[in-house]
């Protein structure tokens, strides 16, 4: 079943030096329960697409449909709470003056979700779901490690009981061991809670292991869309092959695959 669809989505920014086409005529569907990776370089339009899905930016033209309903940037609290964001750098995305618990609770108050008396319970459940103990809720972000902070960001998103998460480089600020744990957590949550993900990243090795499908963007245009296994066995677009060719690899099997896929670039 299609949960989210983008139809001819376009965003043009007017600047003093002329229009910038950040996203041009993008059409794609995201199936319920899948993890769709969006890859591309800086300026390829990844984050602009995310911002339109989240309702932070209004599209210049085209439409977004979520669960059968049209979504514009002006949307109801009920629509907003169902699509949540996890950002790259948890140190700058969490308010340093707010306790962990207050940050996680904020969405519940803003969207007025559930009875007031039950909200701290929801916060503790959300922290529990990401492997943090409930008594951490009084602590400040600065007293947590990078991995713990990113778990808080995920808990903050989960507290609103979303159906869809936009993950914008959720692990690229983390060390490799911590990254592996957070990726496993995200994978488990998706299965257990029946969530749907858009996973924005430029780390193709991560994409290979977490995504069901991959959408490759270049200069605001969708240049390739396919199953992950297909993208990593027979990439069609030259740009996709170029991206794969730039991945740093650690063993001989990877090196062979990369050289094979990047041929002709």
């Amino acid at each position, binding site marked *: 079943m299609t949960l989210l669809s983008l139809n001819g989505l376009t965003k043009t920014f007017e600047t003093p030096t002329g229009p910038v086409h950040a996203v041009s005529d993008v059409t794609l569907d995201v199936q319920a329960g899948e993890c769709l990776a969006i890859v591309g*370089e*800086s300026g390829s339009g990844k984050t602009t697409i995310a911002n339109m899905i989240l309702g932070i930016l209004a599209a210049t033209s085209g439409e977004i449909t979520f669960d059968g309903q049209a979504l514009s940037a002006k949307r109801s609290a009920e629509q907003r709470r169902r699509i949540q964001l996890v950002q790259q750098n948890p140190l700058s995305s969490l308010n340093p003056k707010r306790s962990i618990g207050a940050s996680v609770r904020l969405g519940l108050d803003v969207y007025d979700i559930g009875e007031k008396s039950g909200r701290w319970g929801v916060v503790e459940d959300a922290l529990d779901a990401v492997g943090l103990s409930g008594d951490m809720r009084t602590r400040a972000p600065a007293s947590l490690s*990078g991995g713990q902070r990113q778990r808080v960001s995920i808990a903050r998103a989960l507290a609103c009981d979303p159906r869809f998460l936009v993950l914008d480089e959720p692990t690229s600020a983390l*060390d*490799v*061991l*911590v*990254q*592996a*744990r957070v*990726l*496993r957590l995200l*994978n488990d949550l998706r299965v257990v809670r029946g969530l749907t993900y858009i996973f924005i990243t*430029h*780390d*193709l*090795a*991560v994409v*290979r*292991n*977490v995504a069901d499908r991959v959408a490759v963007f270049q200069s605001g245009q969708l240049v390739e869309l396919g199953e992950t*296994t297909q993208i*990593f066995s027979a990439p069609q677009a030259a740009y996709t092959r*170029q*991206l*794969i*060719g*730039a*991945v*740093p*690899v*650690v*063993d001989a*099997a*990877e090196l062979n*695959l*990369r050289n094979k896929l990047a041929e002709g670039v």
Partner: protein
Amino acid sequence: MSILHIKDLHLGFKTLTGHVDVLHGIDLDIAAGEKVALVGESGSGKSVTARIVLGLLQETRTARISGTVQFDGQDINAMSARDRAGLRGTEMSMIFQDPTSALNPMFTIGNQFTEVLRRRDPKLSKAASHARATTLLDEVAIPDPARVLGAYPFQLSGGMNQRVMIAMALANTPKLLLADEPGTALDVSVQAQTLTLIRDLVEQNGTSVLFISHNLGVVREFADRVYVIYRGNIVEDGPTDALFANPQHAYTRALMSAVPRITGAGLPEVPEVSDDFLAPRISHGGAL
């Protein structure tokens, strides 16, 4: 002969509540022309090691440093602050993680080049400096160097700024280049180009490199030899091929197993932090 010889380096910080030990006796050597990587997670002590080599942490009043750090035969810890400052930007230089924040936003690239070149040659004229900077920018494959010299960092892309930083770092043909996660702030393809560029230039000039990173893939592609650091101790070291083909230490193995592969096989089971990570150092040899 070693360009950099570090022996039994200890570092601690005096804090309000007592003393925190950060480095517990590091040994590390870099031969002339050798590219050596120091790999570890945040807080393992890689960046402070670089700051000691640069002579910067010695200026911090709360830092307690002991052990030997010899650069080109001279003991860095025994030098005066002024002599240490004299080495920076001439005999040793640094490439930072985020080029756009490392360059001064208030000065043109050309002016920043002049400042760098005058560290070696204080009487260098503006015209001569521009001519030299043009050649240097040409070497890092920057098209239209004249335009770039007149530009401010914000007018250039991240990749261009990174190239400018590389050109500046190598402008005075240093004996040692320290690179702290170069390119991590950039896209994969720009990062790959950056690494190739640094490698070509240091090989051409015979510059030694201390390359600091937490990205094992990048290290494998760049370094001749690798040191793995964990909580202030070197836990494993050896030639890059030997270490990647046959990691021995529990911590190195854990790191390797946690790297997602483009060949697939799903997300790895990550071993929990164990006491084995603190096991004694394993060396594959290969150092001078």
